[in-house]
């Protein structure tokens, strides 16, 4: 897994013809995304904003779960904390959105460091369970602090009328917010994957004890990865909270978000740069399509497709596509043949 992850970062240089085509396509795609609000329906922008949001969440998860191999099942805690930081600062302290967003990011980092120091010592299932319970615990805390957070009744950010501290950006505004954040997350992932830090994380993923023996400060690397993941996730949560206006602890700390970020990263390809984005784009559009066309069966179909995807593409879409290209083989079919299923 880690070996393939290392390969996946080999990207054609712009000096080769293929590289130039890629750069051109990328620039065209980017220009299209920037110009999209002029062409597309408002509500479709909202859908796209949601896609970008999940892509960012999956990328953030990928840093700790994909590169470092620490499967966090509690990343939603940063999402919720970011959202609640913005909501309480705007609703209770009368802050405007931008400084609140900065504080939300800082809260994400701080919490990741404080939580990471003890629980990143756990490995495997123990780590997954610990992160899961931190998220659940945080939801309970938010529910039980009604004077600050509004408790189970939720909290409403003043977004319209005279009380609004920052005018509501609307669907187009949030589209750009999420797009910019996604680009930041991509840049961060790119940078991480080619840096010494990224190689440390992959070494930890492969064999933590050996990595330590090689002189990597594993605790520092893991905590840094967790903090980076927490930062991006908290910023996403902060923007999401402002978009929703009224937020509830059950939604902001919903396990559904954690599951989706993990599934998107895994189906797209963990430890790769574009895998989580491909997973998020694919699954979000699939879920939209199913919801619009199969009114009552869509969740069942969605679940079935995820199961099939995991069986057919155990290494994720990005990795499987590369494998198909280089070996002209599909591993699943080989498995079927070998086992005479």
């Amino acid at each position, binding site marked *: 897994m880690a070996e393939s992850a290392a390969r996946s970062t080999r990207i054609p240089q712009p000096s080769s013809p293929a590289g130039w085509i890629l750069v051109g396509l990328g620039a065209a795609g980017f220009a299209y995304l920037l110009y999209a609000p002029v062409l597309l329906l408002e*509500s479709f922008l909202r859908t796209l904003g949601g896609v970008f949001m999940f892509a960012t969440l999956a990328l953030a998860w990928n840093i700790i779960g994909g590169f470092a191999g620490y499967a966090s099942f509690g990343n939603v805690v940063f999402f919720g904390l970011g959202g609640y930081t913005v909501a309480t600062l705007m609703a209770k302290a009368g802050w405007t959105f931008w400084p609140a967003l900065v504080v939300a990011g800082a809260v994400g980092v701080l919490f990741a460091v404080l939580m990471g120091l003890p629980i990143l010592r756990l490995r495997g299932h123990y780590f997954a369970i610990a992160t899961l319970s931190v998220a659940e615990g945080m939801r309970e805390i938010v529910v039980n602090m009604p004077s600050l957070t509004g408790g189970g009744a939720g909290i409403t950010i003043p977004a319209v009328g005279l009380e609004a501290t920052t005018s509501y950006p609307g669907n187009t505004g949030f589209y750009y917010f999420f797009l910019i954040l996604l680009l930041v997350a991509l840049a961060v992932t790119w940078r991480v994957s080619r840096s010494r830090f990224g190689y440390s994380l992959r070494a930890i993923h492969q064999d933590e004890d050996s990595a330590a023996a090689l002189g990597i400060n594993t605790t520092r690397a893991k905590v840094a990865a967790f903090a980076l993941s927490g930062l991006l996730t908290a910023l996403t949560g902060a923007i999401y909270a402002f978009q929703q206006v009224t937020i509830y602890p059950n939604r902001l700390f919903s396990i559904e978000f954690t599951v989706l970020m993990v599934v998107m990263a895994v189906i797209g390809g963990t430890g790769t740069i574009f895998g989580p984005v491909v997973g998020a784009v694919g699954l979000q559009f699939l879920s939209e399509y199913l919801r619009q066309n199969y009114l009552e069966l869509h969740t069942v179909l969605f679940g079935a497709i995820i199961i099939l995807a995991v069986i057919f593409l155990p290494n994720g879409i990005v990795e499987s596509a*590369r494998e198909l290209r280089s070996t002209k083989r599909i591993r699943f079919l080989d498995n079927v043949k070998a086992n005479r299923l």
Partner: protein
Amino acid sequence: MTRRFVILVCCALLLAGACKGSEGEEAGAQGSTLQFGAALSLTGQLSREGILTKDGYEYCKQVVNEEGGVEVGDKTYDLDITYQDDKSTPDVAAQLVDQMNDDNVKFILGPYGSSSTEAASAVVERNGQLMISSAGADDTIYEKGYQNTFGVLSPASEYLATIVKAVSDIAQPKPKTVAILSADDGFSKTAAEGGAAQAEEEGMEVVATEFFAEGSTDVSAQLTKVKPLNPDLILGSVHLEEGVAIIKQSEELGINPAGGFGETVAPPTPDFIETLGPAAEYTLGSSQWTPETEGEDELFGTAEDYAEGFEAAFGDTPEYHNAEATAACLAMILAIEDAGSLEPEAVRESLANLDTESFFGPIKFDENGKNIYKPMQVIQIQDGKPVTVWPSAEGELKWPAPPFDER
């Protein structure tokens, strides 16, 4: 290669997406069809209630079309309703209502539940759509200064207050002390506050107000606190599972108030009676609607006519979720016919001035869009059935309730 593939996929998906179309068709109408939209919880936690709401809307559509459709000025339209599933999550409900706006659907029938309604109401306001909520009871939805959201149902603050009014009106002896147990979600809290205010107004003393987390199945800590205070009446501002827990654990802890128990939405549901058996007896509950509700209208007749018609169409006796959904749809149709126009602004005006009787009771909105003019019904569980005891009586109130071990 991989990256090129990725980018191509992204571009294809984006291009495949909806592009801005030409506008110009009349709001909400395609040819001779009048289009309403509803984002409902058809899957997820609230799917049962969501489906009941959908059936209520469907029954409205069926009756309206049987009666010749909707008359707008000199044109007649068939009614059609598009449904989308919000997966029981408010953010999806908001997104769906936004999508409907882009499809030129301006008339929205509310989602199920206060959270989804609250999220949708913000979008409706921004887009200049019009929404009639059928199941968003929380008063806070209507207190944001929104102009385009109306609710046909009695607001949350009435749910517990109604029980207090009924008890104060017909119970002998009248209880002197009340303890209130409430879930901590917005709707339940608002209902609890309304109940406490009403109790004080009626001269009762509220000896305790205790909260627990929404969805709790263990409320023994709160009950233990209340027990030594010996309240005459224990009121629960709850949903089904918490409502069941209060009765079940009171029985276990031997808590027998001199008067009895009252709970907001749990008792009228069949599950409440089934789960609790004899312990459910004598519990009071409040309901938006029962077949004994007073009032009638031209489309659906009386509440009893509605119940018969609905049963003939769907095979089930209607629950109040069905009725409130039909009532929301009815209000929208009456307002459109009154306005004689499909312009949302004109229909909004006529909704604000709507003042009518219906199978659901009076429909009239205050300046916030709440239907505060409709009384709620109070039921009591008698012989395993909910019996309406107030304000119009199907049966007599049995009071006080005997202790659990004598039932």
